[in-house]
């Protein structure tokens, strides 16, 4: 397939990355080149091939629902950029 035009601003928003105009132009062009290269996959017939999410099959792993040792509140908050009491602080999220 030919590489479609990349709506870099849409992708940047989905990626939660603010880009300058210069960055947006540069990344759009670089991604285009990389995706052109990825088209090498078209050379092979992939229809009917089972997709692999892992190198080998992985299975759900279960354990008893019992509490295990974990961080104290203090440890969990030790690296927080902003905290208040025993909570992470974030900006206002409701209108």
């Amino acid at each position, binding site marked *: 397939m030919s590489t479609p035009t990349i709506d870099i601003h849409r992708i940047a928003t989905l990626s939660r*990355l603010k880009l300058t105009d210069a960055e947006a132009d540069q990344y759009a062009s670089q991604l285009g080149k990389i995706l052109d290269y990825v088209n090498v996959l078209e050379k092979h017939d992939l229809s009917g091939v089972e997709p692999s999410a892992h*190198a080998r099959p992985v299975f759900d792993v279960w354990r008893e629902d019992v509490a295990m040792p974990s961080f104290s509140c203090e440890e969990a908050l030790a690296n927080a950029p902003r905290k208040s009491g025993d909570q992470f602080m974030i900006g206002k999220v409701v209108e």
Partner: protein
Amino acid sequence: MNLANESITSLRQRLVAKEITPTDIVTDLAKAIEARNPALGSYLSIDVEAALKEASTADVSQPLGGIPIAIKDNINVTGQPCTCGSKFLQGTYTAPYDATSIVQLRAAGAVPMGRLNMDEFAMGSTTENSALGVTRNPWDLERVPGGSSGGSASSVGGHIAIAALGSDTGGSIRQPASLCGCVGLKPTYGRVSRYGLVAFASSLDQIGPLTKTVEDSALLLNHLCGKDSRDSTTLDESVPDFTSGLKSGIKGLRIGLPKEYFIEGVHPAVSAAVAAATKHFESLGAEIVGVSLPHTDCGVATYYVLAPAEASANLARFDGVRYGHRTAIQGDLLEHYMNTRAEGFGPEVKRRILLGTYVLSSGYYDAYYLKAQRARTLIRQDFEKAFEQVDVILSPTAPSPAHKLGEISNDPLKMYLEDVFTIAANLAGLPAISVPCGFADEGGKKLPVGLQLVGPHLDEATILRAAYAYEQSTDWHKAKPSI
């Protein structure tokens, strides 16, 4: 004394014989680091006091008792920084826990010592994507050490570490090991717990050792493997003593040469060194067999869809709320995320997040992500078929010796092609090792060349045995850089 030059195995013998103490090793190593790290830039930080304290109580009767191990800066060690080579985590994150691999190394008596530079979030093949400093190749300071575990390879190759841990997602242990003249092993996917390794691409990442010798590699691997309840992808398989079969020789070992790997574009010195090594393996009693891995041309493309896709999801956790950088710009939640991440991440990380988000986005998922997952199946099947005929697969580790600093860093695609020989082992989840096999002469400098041996699932023992037989009957590993 200059204990920094020695291997784990030789230091262990001297420790057990009570010729030296763990404190002697840490002290010597600290001196070597102080003298040579300003030129090499392998370490981002080091807490000598903490290492001396641990060394003073190290139990020498343990298998790694008193041996300092340097750690790539994406593996958590309690109380130490873990920057991932990123401004996002520089000065804003102190590890609150030990990665499982660190817990296991400590249980075997080892002393974690120093934090090693890397491409930001392990994305790169030269370590030039580190936001925190330049790391140089010990064989030529004008050249890159490879990446992303460039600090690990440069410290071991430059003899300012006894051994190091790295992580390998598409070649990030083996390629820098090849470029810096040391031994680098990526274990089978699931052998080593990823708990406490900052995730890049979870279906591909593995922690592994970078060492001066194959025997050290086997010894460290003994204490890294095992099922871990904190990483559900770890394999519940018995862990052999990888050092025990090392010396059994390789008579009758079938070594496969994949025709697709011996291609144009490989540096002549690399081709020559690997050809000579192939003959050498034959002289040791191995049988050389031509094999085919027909989907080799899909490797890099498949990887550069799947790895960024996984990275874009994994790096969503860097949100400026729980740890790491947080923007000072006021705004709503979306602006908070977008500014925080724009300020914290460097260009290559942004490029891969964008690429990964794109291939996962509505309308392109089938065209790219699903297709790459299908190609991954074919790549794995190629190896399964090849391993019906041979015991290990031999190739160059990297297509060329170390590039000059800046030579390929501005061309992302060119940099991605550095991984052409190493990527398939990650996609197929197979164990692979790089060992020194010669030198290229470039501008009066000797630059190390490495060969790669890939083995079947869980068969680290065979690639280690083959690597050991080769290493012990050649002198490449004895050469030391003049820095």
